[in-house]
């Protein structure tokens, strides 16, 4: 079946199997930032934004996304123009193996788009669906706070 949707604000048309999940379609179409982890909605490595809200793409039926907007980490920025979140993650040392990072970035983006000045508790809650085996989370939390500050400055 044909799937027409927006990926990172660009209209796309994909041919999919009706039973496929969004994770598999995105990776097949070259959005390799979206990672396969647990395939049961636990680890968050596959998190993308669907109309601005974080979801586990391993559980989202691809066909459900007809006409909708999907955001992946590729849509955040590019190597010459990093998103403040990407800058902050690098500056804070919040990336080790990098596998959880795309999901972390997108969950963080959804939080900061909704709440530009989150508390520590709000950041932790926003990231409660993203597991990291490397960092111990401290630097990730620092990075989100740093990014929030950068984004507030950019708005001034």
């Amino acid at each position, binding site marked *: 079946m044909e799937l027409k949707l927006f990926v990172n604000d660009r209209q796309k048309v994909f041919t999919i199997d*009706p039973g496929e999940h969004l994770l598999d379609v995105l990776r097949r179409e070259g959005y390799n930032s979206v990672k396969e982890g647990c395939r049961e*909605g636990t680890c968050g490595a596959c998190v993308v934004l669907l109309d601005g809200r974080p*979801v*586990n793409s391993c559980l*989202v039926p691809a066909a459900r996304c007809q006409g909708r907007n999907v955001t992946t980490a590729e849509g955040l920025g590019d190597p010459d123009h990093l998103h403040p979140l990407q800058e902050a993650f690098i500056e804070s040392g919040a990336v080790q193996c990098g596998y959880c990072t795309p999901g972390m970035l997108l969950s963080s983006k959804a939080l900061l788009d909704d709440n530009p000045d989150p508390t520590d508790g709000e950041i932790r809650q926003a990231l409660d*669906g993203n597991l990291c085996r490397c960092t111990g989370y401290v630097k990730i939390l620092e990075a989100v706070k740093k990014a929030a500050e950068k984004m507030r400055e950019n708005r001034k």
Partner: protein
Amino acid sequence: MVIHRLSIDRYFLPESEREATRLLEQASGRYFPIGGGTGFAFSKPKNLRGIVDLSRAGLDYVKKRKNGIHIGAATPIRTLMDSPALAGYCGGVLPEAALTIATTPLRNMITVGGNAIQVYYWSSLPPLLLALKARFVIAGKKKRTMPAESFYSKQPRRHLDRAEILREILLPPGQKGVAGAFLKFSKTDTDFALVNVAAVIRAEGGICRDASIVLGAVSPLPIRLQKAEKILKGSSLSKEIIEKAAAEGIESVKIMRDFRVSPGYKKKIIPTLVERSLSLASDRCLGDV
């Protein structure tokens, strides 16, 4: 069990409940309705050939009316946390329970109807909806309404024929002096419940006029602690009465086997959880919180 792809031929996104039920009727059991579809992480129905996705069927809403709160079955759990209509309802017990369900991304996908109808023993909403005396509106050839006591008398999906869907959940109107509390006990915040408790109390002048106390994760379906409720009714909501209800109220409860912890472990923590939830509900009733 990891399911990589559903072996289906068709995927439908009906734009009304009528269209959805018509599709299901035509399919003679080969199509399956979904809210969020996250249940497929655990299992899938046999002979599945198509999905009827209810996310665009006009069932995503929370409405406050004179006869109560109407929640569409395809409403994501996240909406229970954000909806102004629910913030103060019954002491804020719905956002409180919603926050115990899964994680942030999953709360954007799991639906109220899905969590209500596909009962896993650890589910949060079924015990709460039973305690709140919710009613369940089923759409199909004829619309019908079931009270929670009947709905949860067996796995709720078995009440529906193959061309019916859960349309809406109705909660009684909010009242002064009625408040609830929901507590989940688990290893981590986002883990499945080892035990959960929903308590809803109606009080006047410090006296309990009615109480609903429901346990989850101790049996396949949520169970009411009727003995504890009887201890509370007509009594003052004192610390002593609450402790008595919590301690004696679970005496006859049969706790099922759970591979994660022993029934004996659950039996030890249940009274504490019941006591805490009753205290919280009572404080909210009496306006102390």
